[in-house]
């Protein structure tokens, strides 16, 4: 089979990988073009002894490592789907590659090892480093709005365990609003039904009228959220919750929330 025929079905995925790795479609595509030009120049740049997809990604990363195409992501027009690009950019290149190969592109550890031409234990170390860098990057000051003490304690233990700080636990609408006035959280975890009969939803709406912050609702009554009038993108977890679900959704909310970092970049 010709190289062209072997790699053609994988090009859309390589463009995705390149986009995620470089932070912009223009820059990513420039590298994909460069790798195809490298094959035209020298077909031996394609490792025929490897599965085509692995050989293609390996050649791509060799190109990416060896040349700088001088297409700064900030020069390229930014498209809408790239809210994570800023956060990905901040991960050290090698760990970023390993993380994206496995989490985004679905390569197994041993396949990623072949792509990066490294022993599997080094891939494991790179993935761990990516995990640590992501945790550090998304570390947040969290306000918990929850009236049930045991659940509040569970949530507190869970979020501090993954590197976040709890600014406070509010049990009522009034406490929540007062807490935000005191210190601005970077994430809010909110129950809907609060101790004094007040509503976590109304508390959050009041908070969102003064600050912009991602909100995750944790509720036994998800239907009460379906009012169809939430302007802010919110997240919903149903009680009783799995700790793993809460961790995943918190990470998602913060990883894809680049407003603070964006404005910082623009100011620079």
């Amino acid at each position, binding site marked *: 089979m*010709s190289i062209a025929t072997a790699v053609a079905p994988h090009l859309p995925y390589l*463009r995705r990988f390149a986009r995620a790795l470089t932070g912009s479609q223009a820059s990513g595509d420039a590298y994909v073009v460069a790798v195809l030009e490298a094959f035209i120049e020298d077909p031996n740049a394609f490792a025929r002894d490897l599965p085509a997809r692995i050989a293609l990604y390996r050649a791509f990363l060799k190109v990416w490592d060896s040349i700088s195409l001088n297409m700064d992501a900030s020069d390229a027009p930014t498209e809408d789907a790239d809210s994570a690009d800023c956060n990905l950019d901040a991960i050290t290149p090698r760990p970023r590659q390993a993380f994206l190969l496995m989490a985004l592109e679905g390569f197994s550890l041993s396949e990623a090892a072949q792509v990066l031409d490294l022993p599997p234990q080094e891939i494991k170390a790179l993935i761990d480093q990516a995990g640590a860098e992501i945790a550090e990057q998304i570390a947040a000051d969290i306000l918990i709005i929850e009236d049930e003490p045991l659940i509040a304690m569970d949530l507190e233990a869970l979020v501090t365990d993954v590197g976040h700080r709890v600014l406070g636990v509010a049990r009522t609408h009034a406490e929540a609003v007062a807490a935000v006035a005191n210190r601005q959280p970077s994430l809010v975890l909110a129950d809907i039904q609060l101790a004094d009969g007040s509503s976590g939803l109304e508390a959050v709406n009041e908070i969102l009228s003064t600050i912009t912050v991602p909100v995750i609702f944790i509720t036994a009554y998800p239907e009460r959220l379906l009012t169809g009038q939430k302007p802010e993108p919110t997240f919903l977890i149903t009680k009783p919750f799995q700790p793993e679900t809460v961790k995943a959704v918190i990470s998602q909310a913060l990883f894809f929330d680049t407003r603070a970092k964006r404005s910082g970049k623009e100011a620079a």
Partner: protein
Amino acid sequence: MGSQSKPPGQQPMENDDREAEAKPGARVDANVRAHLGRKLKTAYQSLIEEPVPDRFVKLLDELRNKEGKS
């Protein structure tokens, strides 16, 4: 306020007796990494669905021709 009520090093907060510091050395685990990967996939879905731009098709043709000659 009792001396045992706060661990050392924790900052006292006005109106807030429940501040909790992050544990050091945290990292997102395999479950969270996989979750972020799925969300990234969703974010880039349109890229997978759109046709590959012409310049890539041309380069593939060029590569095919070159291979045919050698």
